[in-house]
């Protein structure tokens, strides 16, 4: 027991160290990065939040959505309309964007949550397609397929003049995403978060423990919608433009692959997934036209060799190492004593 406690603590402190290094790196990045790589980094940060919000559904609760771009796009259009038509500043605009995402989830939740598994996948896809159609048709409001250009990029007032506009905007994004990620951390770590994982594992057991699982799923769907819309709002600012592409199911599909690639159900996996895919897109496209093929290959290789995702790679390596030893026995063990000895074996390995 004692040793295990120590290991947990040292693992936690090394993870904290890693987090601190990442935060510092993100903070000083503008000092070393020119505008273009900085804009790629900004996009990665925004997509990380978007993919994390999807992960709440897909990874934690086990609801495979192929329509999360509906919220991403809703947030984008809310921000663009408010900024262009009503000249609203960023904070109220982003709040309205979140509320719009929440409203959309409130309305559509009862319908999509009648299903699960592959049915859920297709139902969420049709939801985003209907929205896509509305945007396409309602040209007067949304600009149709031309979208809405001219969304002004928000700036932190105390930094304007001190740093360039890209750097300033990067800090805006970093600030908003940091706050959102902190609240997401709370959600995942709350007893609500544990309930979500329980539902992914076996909804009926959780219900048998007295949890209102339908409401839990509804609430997480609403939360995911809110966070997704927030990311979408930031993305509209980032592009200075919003178009139907932001709503497209291809955006949702890509986000879903980022979740899988990074590690569904892990907190930081989505960040890894978003980083890898976006870097591939921008870096590979600079030296070959065939980046789409390479991206496709990455998707396939991920399924073959990393079905658990990049974030679980360290665990996987440890498993493979452990497999080499006879002491580490596999899952099904008939005798009770054997389980005890496995536990001891694992403990002594660390």
């Amino acid at each position, binding site marked *: 027991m004692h040793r295990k406690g120590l290991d947990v603590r040292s693992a936690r402190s090394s993870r904290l160290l890693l987090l601190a290094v990442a935060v510092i790196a993100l903070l000083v990045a503008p000092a070393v990065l020119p505008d273009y790589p900085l804009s790629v980094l900004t996009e990665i940060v925004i997509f990380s939040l978007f993919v994390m919000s999807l992960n709440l559904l897909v990874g934690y609760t086990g609801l495979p959505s192929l329509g999360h771009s509906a919220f991403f796009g809703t947030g984008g259009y809310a921000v663009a309309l408010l900024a262009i038509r009503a000249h609203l500043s960023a904070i109220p605009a982003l709040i309205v964007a979140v509320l719009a995402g929440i409203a959309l989830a409130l309305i559509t939740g009862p319908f999509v949550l009648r299903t699960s598994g592959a049915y859920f996948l297709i139902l969420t896809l049709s939801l985003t397609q209907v929205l896509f159609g509305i945007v396409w048709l309602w040209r007067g409001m949304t600009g149709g397929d031309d979208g809405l250009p001219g969304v002004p990029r928000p700036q932190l007032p105390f930094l304007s003049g001190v740093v360039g506009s890209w750097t300033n905007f990067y800090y805006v994004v970093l600030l908003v995403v940091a706050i959102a990620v902190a609240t997401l951390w709370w959600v995942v770590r709350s007893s609500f978060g*544990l*309930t979500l994982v329980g539902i992914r594992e076996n909804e*009926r057991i959780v*219900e048998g423990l007295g949890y209102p699982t339908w409401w839990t799923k509804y609430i997480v769907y609403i939360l995911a919608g809110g966070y997704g819309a927030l990311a979408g709002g930031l993305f509209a600012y980032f592009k200075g433009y919003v178009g139907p592409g932001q709503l497209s199911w291809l955006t949702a599909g890509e986000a879903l692959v980022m979740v899988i690639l990074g590690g569904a159900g892990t907190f930081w996996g989505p960040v890894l997934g978003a980083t890898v895919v976006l870097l591939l897109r921008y870096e590979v496209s600079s030296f070959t036209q065939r980046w789409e093929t390479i991206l496709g290959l990455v998707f396939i290789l991920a399924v073959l060799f990393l079905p658990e995702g990049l974030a679980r790679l360290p665990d996987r390596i440890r498993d493979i190492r452990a497999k080499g030893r006879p002491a580490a026995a596999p899952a099904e063990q008939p005798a009770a004593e054997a389980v005890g000895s496995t536990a001891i074996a694992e403990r002594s390995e660390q």
Partner: protein
Amino acid sequence: MTAPALQLEDITKTIGGLTILDGIPLKVEPGERRAIIGPNGAGKTTLLNVIAGFLPPTRGRVLIFGHDVTRLPAHRRVDVGLMKTNQQPAVLRELTALENVMLALLRGRHRFFGLAGSVDRDHEARRQAMSVLEEWDLLDVAHERVQHLSHGYQRRLELAARFAMRPRLLLLDEPAAGLAADEIPAFLERLQRLPRDMTVILVEHSMRVVFAFADRITVLHHGAVLTEGTPDEVRQDRYAQEAYLSGGTRRKDA
């Protein structure tokens, strides 16, 4: 007069034209240990699922401690003190043993569907969970993922998690199934140690467990109650012998 722990009135369940349960009456007094036996397909598991709220009955009423719960969803029946175990241990395989117990203990503890409280910081609940694990000899696997545990451990964990919620009425669906023969005595002893004020309804194929544990036995056959009585009465009942006890041996031979 206190209300019975469980009262069923005319419980009927038909699925696709097939009558699984046919007008079942049942009355279980508080503190009683009741076993429900019957050949495969008699409707025992279906009956437990109707009581627990996982299947709506086609007709009839379910009363638990005098509350009519017929229309209540499964998760609300936990409020009147009902808990159920499954044939496959109802444990969450990707969580650790500790987390399984924690999930049971955290129900209703934090507001806003649990959004208001952190799992890691609830030291009180954690302490309780650890003591539950200790009580059930599970302390050494507290941080193991359940999927790495043997069937016997999973069964104990399932009971421990349900027990942590202090149910007043516990439904056990074939708890001894899947246990090795040498594990059964210890398991039976554990069941017998359950507090006497807890009402227990047990569905079980192992006659050893049933006759050692139950105060009264109900024999189900083709979705209807064939007979009911004390273990001795049932043992002597000719119908019960024909319908089940012999059928049970046949099943084992097959």
